[in-house]
């Protein structure tokens, strides 16, 4: 190993170690870039190690930041964030919850299915795992527990569906991934749609089967009203607005009518109108949505800037070449290398959020994947599903921690762990399907425009 290789590894280890101090991730990344530039320069001057690091090189960070600043596609990001926050405030989730609960209340496991469907419908609001898990936990968890659902089933459903939100388009994670992979956001959205629906269906099928086999885990209330025409109409009306909005956003991208940026802006506008129709739009709501949009956008872009500097210095030290050498040197076939990458990402997902993994790891491994001749959209969706699964997985699943934060005190971490285990298996089944049948991902984009 050369000195550059050793420094690359050290830089990575330092990153993992330092973020556990609780210092903001963005500044750890940026700070390490400066620190390792200094180390590289000292190594070169004082120890005659040929590294070719200097401040002029690290100053190129500014050009990387400029690439972010004048990036027209990334404009979609704050707009999708706004759209999600506004949908949250629009009161639609609560209304859907009530209507779905009436519709599916008579089915065993109906409440859990309701949570899954709402999670999928409102996936737009849930680019951020924390937000979606918290929303679903506050909305669905008390209702399920009140009706005597097994707490493991209830907790597992909320966690799993909450993470599913980051995958189902329109998702801000996919916008960022498309940018890093230099691919079309539209293709990635469309590619992720069927995998997302597949996972959602697996969840619903599991809940139905589980409730059928363990009737006591998902009791049906005795005073359930019969499903009549008027109820159906109520539900249809309630579902029409949010579903219409999501479909309009995706549909306009699918048919090539609008760019993702335009779709995001129009979607944000639509969410505002929806909130207004539901009499939830006031000046104070608007202000708080705008400020929350600012803060969320700021922390994502701060990590973006920090990661730009970090990746630049890592590349300067030869980290990129090191990763490529290691991956190509693995004694596996091309498929085996993909699996190795996915396992690596899965483990990283225990420690890191999707933002860091997308910004740092994805660009490191993507050249290798492309030289192996795999479809980039397919690989990116696999990468996304793999990340999403890892957020669900003990010991450090992000979803589990967010869930614990808002769950009723009686719900122990142990219960949540036990609840998510079956869903992890479902995720792995989904992942395997996507791996084996690439058309699940690739068919829809091939039909678009």
């Amino acid at each position, binding site marked *: 190993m050369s000195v550059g290789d050793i420094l690359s590894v050290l830089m990575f280890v330092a990153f993992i170690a330092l973020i556990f101090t609780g210092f903001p991730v963005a500044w750890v990344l940026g700070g390490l870039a400066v*620190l390792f530039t200094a180390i590289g320069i000292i190594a070169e001057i004082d120890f005659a190690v040929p590294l070719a690091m200097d401040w002029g090189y690290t100053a190129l960070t500014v050009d990387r*930041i400029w690439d972010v600043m004048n990036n027209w596609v990334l*404009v979609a990001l704050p707009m999708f964030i706004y759209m999600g926050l506004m949908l949250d405030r629009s009161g639609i989730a609560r209304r859907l919850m009530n209507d779905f609960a009436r519709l599916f209340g008579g089915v065993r496991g109906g409440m859990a299915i309701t949570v899954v469907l709402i999670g999928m419908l409102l996936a737009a609001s849930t680019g951020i795992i924390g937000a979606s898990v*918290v929303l679903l936990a506050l909305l669905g968890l008390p209702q399920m527990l009140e009706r005597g659902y097994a707490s493991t089933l209830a907790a597992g459903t909320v966690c799993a569906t909450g993470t599913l939100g980051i995958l189902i388009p329109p998702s801000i994670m996919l916008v960022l991934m498309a940018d890093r992979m230099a691919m079309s956001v539209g293709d990635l959205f469309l590619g992720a749609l069927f995998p997302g629906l597949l996972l959602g269906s697996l969840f619903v099928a599991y809940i139905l089967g589980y409730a059928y086999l363990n009737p006591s885990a998902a009791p049906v209330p005795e005073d359930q009203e019969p499903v009549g025409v008027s109820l159906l109409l109520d539900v249809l009306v309630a579902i029409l607005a949010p579903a219409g909005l999501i479909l309009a956003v995706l549909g306009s991208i699918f048919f090539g009518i609008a760019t993702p940026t335009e779709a995001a802006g129009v979607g944000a506008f639509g969410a505002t109108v929806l909130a207004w129709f539901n009499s939830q739009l006031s000046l104070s709501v608007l202000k708080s949505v705008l400020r929350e949009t600012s803060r969320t*956008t700021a922390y994502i872009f701060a990590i973006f800037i920090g990661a730009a500097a970090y990746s630049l210095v890592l590349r300067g030290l030869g980290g990129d070449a090191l990763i490529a050498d290691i991956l190509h040197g693995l004694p596996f076939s091309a498929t085996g290398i993909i699996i190795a990458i996915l396992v690596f990402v899965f483990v990283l997902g225990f420690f890191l959020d999707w933002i860091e993994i997308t910004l740092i790891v994805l660009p490191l491994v993507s050249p290798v994947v492309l030289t192996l001749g795999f479809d980039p959209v397919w690989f990116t969706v696999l990468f996304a599903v793999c990340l999403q699964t890892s957020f669900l997985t003990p010991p450090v699943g992000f979803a589990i921690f967010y869930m614990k934060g808002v769950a009723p005190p009686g719900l122990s971490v142990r219960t949540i762990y036990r609840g998510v285990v079956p869903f992890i298996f479902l995720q792995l089944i989904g992942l395997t399907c996507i791996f084996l049948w690439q058309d699940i991902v690739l068919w829809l984009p091939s039909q678009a425009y």
Partner: protein
Amino acid sequence: MSEPLSSKSIETDPYPHTRFSRWVDGFLISLGQLTAWIWLLLLGVIVVNVTLRYFFAEGHIELEELQWHLYTLGFLSAISYAYSADAHIRVDVLRENWSLTSRAWVELYGILLLLLPFVVLVFWASVPFVIYSYETGEISEAPGGLPYRFLIKLVLPLGFALLFLAVLARLSRIVKYLFLGAHR
């Protein structure tokens, strides 16, 4: 769901303010609340642009460029606002069990060894970047694009100057807490 996303809201303000920090944080938070309206403006520009394009078949390069200008202004001004509001993502798994004093030490070393050097680097590197753009009279390459490219580039050093202020404010609070007998 606005605030309680992580433990960040629990300890927004555990450290004593200084006169300097109160002034800076107050200023940056007001500024951030003001610039948050940019997102509404951006939304409006996109909707107008889409309407013009699909219903009146008019393409407007300047409106498209205005979109990323607004977005750049929005996110760069928000970074210091988010810093003052302590909204930047932290990994809280271990930290939440630590005492305020331990956290303050982490904050002190983090600011001195990681954050400040980074802010200084970006600021130092962005100044010639803006000056070059100004001296060459850089404009948009697109026909009908916006002039005065250096103005939007100027937002980068400005944003980082604000962040620098925000960091100094936080540093002053940490120093007061750790060294000036402000332990409660």
